[in-house]
């Protein structure tokens, strides 16, 4: 039994202890926004924030996460309003099949939380471990820049 803070709430996760965070989220906690794509941290569909850092939840055993702060896609709009990154995703019509997008969005949020004026190469560096088979990368880039502008505007 491990106690993990998920989206600000303490959750008891049964395990087994080597079970990755991804499956604890999806199956024990019923939070299916975080997706399974590869199981070996190669695709980024499972991206969450662990202590503010974009992390691949498919390879993080729950036993390493006692009292750690985990945030998932569900946390971005908990107050009922869309996060600027989610709003930008809608404005730029990013999603096609949409399966990779929660992971993409979490990676983008982590980037913009640290750097709200990223260059093209900084966007590439932060986002290139998130794969998209539908090929939405050009729109993701545009949406990240759009969200960045909004987030800069909110921080005078």
């Amino acid at each position, binding site marked *: 039994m491990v106690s993990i803070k998920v989206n600000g709430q303490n959750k008891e996760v049964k395990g*087994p202890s*080597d*079970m990755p965070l991804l*499956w604890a989220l*999806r*199956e*024990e906690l*019923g939070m*299916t*926004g975080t*997706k*399974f*794509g*590869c*199981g*070996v*941290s*190669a*695709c980024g*569909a499972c991206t969450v924030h662990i202590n503010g*850092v*974009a*992390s691949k939840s498919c390879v993080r055993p729950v036993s390493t996460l006692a009292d750690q702060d985990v945030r*998932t*896609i*569900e946390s971005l709009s908990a107050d009922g309003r*869309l996060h600027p990154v989610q709003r930008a*995703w*809608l404005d730029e*019509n*990013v*999603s*096609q*099949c*949409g*399966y*990779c*997008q*929660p992971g993409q*969005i979490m990676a983008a949020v982590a980037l913009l939380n640290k750097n709200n004026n990223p260059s093209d*190469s900084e*966007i*590439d*560096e*932060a*986002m*290139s*471990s*998130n*794969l*998209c*088979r*539908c*090929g*939405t*990368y*050009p*729109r*993701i*880039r545009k949406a990240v820049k759009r969200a960045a502008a909004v987030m800069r505007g909110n921080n005078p």
Partner: protein
Amino acid sequence: MMDNSSLNRRQFVLSAALLAGGLVVGCRTTRGSRVSDTDSDGKPVFMPNAWVHIKADGQVVLILDRVEMGQGTMTAHATIIAEELGIDAQLVKVEFAPPGAAYINPLLGQQITGASTSTPASWQPLRLAGAAAREMLSEGGAQQLGVPVKECVCEKGAITHQASGKSVSFGAIAAFTAANVKVPKDPKPKDFSAFRQLGKSVKRLDSRSKVLGQATYGMDMQLPGMLVAVVVRAPAQGARVLSFDDTKVKAYWAEQQVEGWVLPTSRGVAVVSSNFWLAKSAAARMEARFSSGEAPRFDGDLAALARAKGFDRDAGPMLQVDKIGDAPAALQAAGRTIEASYEVPFLPHQTMEPQNCTAHFKEGRLEIWAPCQAAASAQAVAARVAGLKEEQVTFHTTYIGGGFGRRLAVDYVHEAAEIAKALGRPVKVIWTREDDLRHDYYRPGMLHVMKASLSSQKTISAWSQRIVGQSILGSFLKEIPLGPLPQRGLGSESGDKDQEAQSQPGTPAPDNFVTEGADKIPYDLGARLVQYRNLETGVKVGFWRSVGHSHTGFAIESFINELAQSADVDALQFRRRMLQGKTRELGVLEKAAAMANWGTTPAQPSQGKRTLGIAMHCCFSSYCAQVVQILMVENTVTVEKVWCAIDVGFALNPDIITAQVEGSIIYGLSAALKQNITMKNGVVQQTNFNNCPILRMNETPDIFVSLVGGSDSALSPTGVGEVAVPALAPALCHAIYRASGKIFRKMPLPVATGKLRTGSAGASSGVAVDPALRSAAQAAIESNCGPCHSAPANEGGIDNIDDLTALEGKKGARRRYKSIIGKSMPPPYEDNGQMVSPISEEDKTAIFKWLDAVAKARGE
């Protein structure tokens, strides 16, 4: 190719009825459909292709008879209905259709989504159903208001009498209309010039739920008491489990103090527990013996096998695909002929959502949820497997995390139905990524053997093309009851009779899914002979985005570029001469060329060359031409820009169309540069994205799309899901040839993929190392280390893993990296109880060879 005009001459039957207190209007296409409109007692049956329901509360519901897998059908079809009814498309509720004869795709004769047919098939029926609903509601509303119908307008969900301002809502008159108004025989859809939403880029209806993480894909299904199954399948193609020992599986569950079940099934051993991790960890402990399967000695190289059997040379039993004049004689008589062979590998789909299916067998009924493109097949297979009648199976189509043709197969449904029936509890079968890569229905590897002659006017005077590879229909339909699929435009008019005359034993059956694109090449090629020879490999093959066009486009357009080179004519000009009168082909070609400033040389870098390549390929009644710009430094190719002109008739949602083109180009780049299925002892060697990579954001070019005709076109819309895939590879190869003089005729291309925007491709490290060794090492490092190490440094990334020059400058690099590569990096994984390093011997060798050269050059 599909003829648009036949669509307009189809007969449509409209019907309407009262349904659940509301009005339902349907439109069915009769021509080409196998559906009868009376039941076995001769009573008329309501069986629309387009079904619009106006409910008593005013909600407008569209039953979507196609799937939504990213290509935008949900939004496009809802917009058509919304346009006719005068309501905002965002207000239309879309439900996915259950299996039913009503939902058969009239262009395919099956209830499937594929062949870029969704919009062309539904365009007229939806317009007519929407128009009929509007006219009926207007009449019903006018009657209720006691005014003449021509003084009323239908908009914003109500019928309004303009003069008095009196109005009545859809919901208020739906039932009255259904009971009192006859369905119009000849409803009038809106004129193109009156469109307010069609032709504009209406926002996608599914985006919000997807960015919130709330859209339910098959993988997300949750049912009370649901179990999860992982299946231990024989790894080799066509192999089966011979025996198994589940002692360690059960010991694991006992140790974990959880319940679990082991169920042998027809497709492998199902390992079932209360969640995925307990099932997967248990499955890893299964000991099993497997048969060697149906392709034990095939290594995945179809072209090599074809050559070994002489299929590239011997006439043998060939199927004639297209014939004009006497090409063999013309080639014989020609002074000079040009020959080339093109080869492509087996390719995986790699949908982001691995295969899965959820099923529950309860009280004699089976209920199933799956991300599937073929609902009726799913229902039929599930019924057969569970020993039920189809009426006893309820099938739900979920959102789909990528289709690309993979979801036409229903193997995952087969598995779930079998397991659910045995268990009697709800169960979700989950495929791991390794399962998904190993048990795909691959795009078959193919070989094209080409020969042509040039006339004195520098056009093509004769063309011979021999296509060798495995029939899709033959193997795919062995297990999937799709029923006979219509052959897409097989053969030319003059050739049909010759096909009948060809009754040589062993002549392959027509399979236009393998030869399409070569059956009606639009160029004037003089005399032509195109033939097909089947070559069975025992590998499971199926439909992959753009299907036959994915390889015929590569072979034909690459050869056209080579012939232009031989004729010493510009590649664009060479094509123009052979497309006289082909206005739509010329339209996209000229547009793409203009966008790219074809004919001018791009600004050159200080190192390497920057070039353009061009290609055109048309399919599924749509037209596409592309120009690709690359920067090539030594053996590293950076794809900088792609310009694409596409003609899909009326562009009903320009932004969705543009998105599909962008996605198709990136999909084509993954195939051209990265993906490759190889086999050993019948087992596919690729297991995950680290050894079967796809394109990443930092490798993605700037893409520019132009819609020829676009929203101003008066032509009915044609499909866009696939048409932009085939032209990419030949345009890329053309640019590579113009940069380096190297002609590549085999995919994936033997080059390293350059990164954009991060620079340093080929920058000098000051260490004198053979660039070929560096390139080979870079490719190996990219595919093995990239997945983890392209993250930023503070998240586990290491400095400049993609920049080999930095590593070359580090003292002791050889000693350091040789001690970890293959041992702890990339991280080993468990495969059937053994820890296995995922890096292949070839990749390790490539990296070590380069490291040795670096050390030697540094005198270490």
